[in-house]
């Protein structure tokens, strides 16, 4: 920014007082109002550093840092650098709402971003609405598209559970079996699985024969398995929390050599090495993956770029520590959401918090998002009315202790009628 040369008609005294007044005003005004062209854009990152979501939080953090670095190296947003301000929410809804408050009032963040666990999103979103703080979640839950939240909450980087399970049901019914027993965590995210998969499999002529809900803080699982009916053809499992490995191991020990078909959401083994002893029984079973964990043979260039920037090896673990396995099926959402934020801020000509409503409107105006470096998981379509994005899903099979992609669903497989029109709500 260059300062105008004073014109020769002005007196020396006038120029000096004018300059003094300007600098006084500059020091009194917050940075995001004055000199907005070079001050960083502050993105409050609500991260699960501790609590039951810690493994996800670690990788959401790494992916977010990598995406911010890539965006800054390419010139930032509107020429301004991005600054990520991370705060731990302890995977706790109450703390989540407090963290949003800190972002808005203490750190002076432009927006909030990055939450995964659905109970934290549901607990924080009302506060985001009150603070009129754009809240970009990376959560999968159906709570955004269901209409239970508000116009300030938006999910442009990851497909929701309702869409995911609707896309899975035809594959399960055609290839694995029609009588399904569901095992899921007993909170909002698991209930989305229960409700929407039950409906989706019935459309395929199948049936859920048992629904087994397990608290996400549970540490011992064998006692739940006897509820699995004998006529079960497919086990559908999705589990979260620190004990997921125990869950899958005990399932293997329960069935022994003769188990039904197994279809899992990779959530049950996110951040867990598939080569862990006790998981051999999964060979041949199928998993939903948001994005393939293992390097696939015909992988596009932008996936290579993404994996390299985040620091992943061929097995989806950290390049620094092969035992540190990523939460590959979810964390791409942070990368893609940050790129959506960049595009929307540039489209809205975002300068500061006064433009927050314009930013939301700019995201709502988005539609097709072609696959590429900004969207490495695959192509997507954003629905501005429901604030939810829809993308392709991957179905992989365990072969030789690795996951190999067997089927990629289309975006259309996961579409469903709108349940809300957030654009009709006032800001």
């Amino acid at each position: 920014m260059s300062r105008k040369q004073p014109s020769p008609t002005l007196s020396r005294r006038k120029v000096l007082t004018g300059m003094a007044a300007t600098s006084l005003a500059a020091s009194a005004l917050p940075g995001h109002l004055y000199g907005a062209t070079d001050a960083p854009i502050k993105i409050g990152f609500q991260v699960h550093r501790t609590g039951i979501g810690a493994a996800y939080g670690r990788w959401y953090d790494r992916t977010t840092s990598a995406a911010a670095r890539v965006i800054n190296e390419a010139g930032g947003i509107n020429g301004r650098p991005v600054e990520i301000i991370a705060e731990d929410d302890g995977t706790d809804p109450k703390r989540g709402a407090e963290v949003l408050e800190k972002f808005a009032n203490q750190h002076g963040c432009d927006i909030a971003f990055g939450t995964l666990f659905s109970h934290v999103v549901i607990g924080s979103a009302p506060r985001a609405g009150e603070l009129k703080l754009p809240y970009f979640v990376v959560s999968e839950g159906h709570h955004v598209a269901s209409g239970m939240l508000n116009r300030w909450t938006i999910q442009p980087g990851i497909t929701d559970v309702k869409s995911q399970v609707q896309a899975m049901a035809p594959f399960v019914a055609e290839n694995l079996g029609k009588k399904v027993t569901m095992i899921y965590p007993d909170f909002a995210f698991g209930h989305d699985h229960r409700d929407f998969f039950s409906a989706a499999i019935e459309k395929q002529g199948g049936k859920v024969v048992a629904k087994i809900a397990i608290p996400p803080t549970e540490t011992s699982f064998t006692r739940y398995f006897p509820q699995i009916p004998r006529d079960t053809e497919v086990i559908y499992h999705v589990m979260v929390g620190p004990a997921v490995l125990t869950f899958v191991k005990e399932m293997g020990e329960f069935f022994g050599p003769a188990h039904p078909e197994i279809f899992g959401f990779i959530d049950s083994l996110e951040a867990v090495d598939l080569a862990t002893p006790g998981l051999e029984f999964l060979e041949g079973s199928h998993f939903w993956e948001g994005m393939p964990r293992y390097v696939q043979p015909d992988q596009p260039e932008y996936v290579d770029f993404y994996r390299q920037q985040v620091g992943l090896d061929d097995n989806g673990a950290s390049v620094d520590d092969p035992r540190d396995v990523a939460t590959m099926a979810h964390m791409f959402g942070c990368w893609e959401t940050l790129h959506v934020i960049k595009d929307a801020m540039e489209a809205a000509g975002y300068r500061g918090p006064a433009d927050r409503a314009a930013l939301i409107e700019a995201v709502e105006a988005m539609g097709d998002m072609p696959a590429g470096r900004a969207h490495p998981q695959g192509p997507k379509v954003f629905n501005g009315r429901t604030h939810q994005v829809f993308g392709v899903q991957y179905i992989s099979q365990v072969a030789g202790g690795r996951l190999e992609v067997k089927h990629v669903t289309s975006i259309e497989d996961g579409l469903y009628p709108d349940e809300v029109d957030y654009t009709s709500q006032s800001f």
Partner: protein
Amino acid sequence: MEFGPHLILAMLEGLVQASVLTLTALGLSLVFGVMRVVNVAHGEFFMLGAVLAWWITALAGGPPALGFVLALIGAPLAVGLLAAAADWLVLRRIDYDPERTIVATIGLLYILQQGVLMTYGPEARPVAPPFNHRLAIPWFEWGAEGLEFYFPWGLSTTSYKLFVVAAALAVGLGLWAVMVRSRLGLVLRATQADSETAQAFGVPVERVYALVFGIGAALAALGAVLVVPIRQAHYLMGGDPLLLSFIVVIIGGLGSLRGTVLAAVLIGMSDGIISVFFSPTLAKILATLLVALVLVYRPQGLFGKARA
């Protein structure tokens, strides 16, 4: 699942639960019995045992059995020394005043939990069992040709789970032998009965207290080392054992080792059986209800001695 195999499975699960609970609750009961200290940090000593087991096995490398044996010795020892130090540095200085020890052990709880979070991190990490075989259990039914044996779906346990039960039994018997047969046990019992008189007879009560606090914590850590190959080590894992230990100790009678063992088996087995047939939440509800009933109708616990 048919009723018979289902019940056997429920009992096997309950037995493993009861074994670990017995060790943990014995530690809590010992500390209360001898020192009259309600140790709120007991669950964190359990957690610390599991985390140290992970650490020792990771450092040891080699076959899983080697690391496990080292952990079985090293983790309880380290946790016991830490607890004895905490007793010497904190509890002794506040004269074992009941209210202040509760507050002090709450502080200890947070220090241990956050210390582990800061160093070990928030991840759940597995420890490989020294051996683990799935043992299918046969069941019988009256078929067309008389008694028939078959292997029902899901009716199984693992050799390691049976080992946990045996190990807990051995430790429990060992503790009983020490308390009843050894000079150390005599000193402990004397301190428990009347610490002032014991001191008058030359028992170094302060050292006994530090020793007991250490042994109590070591028992919790030992339970954790046994269970960690089945579960995983995690910084928040101390909550449940603390709650269950308190339930067991209150039902069994604070300070009564016999009552503690019986209550641990009762709560562990009923927890296993009710969890399998109904729900784990119902099992916790019933256990808590039982505590309430005991407190109302028999405040000294099933085997506790009523105090004047």
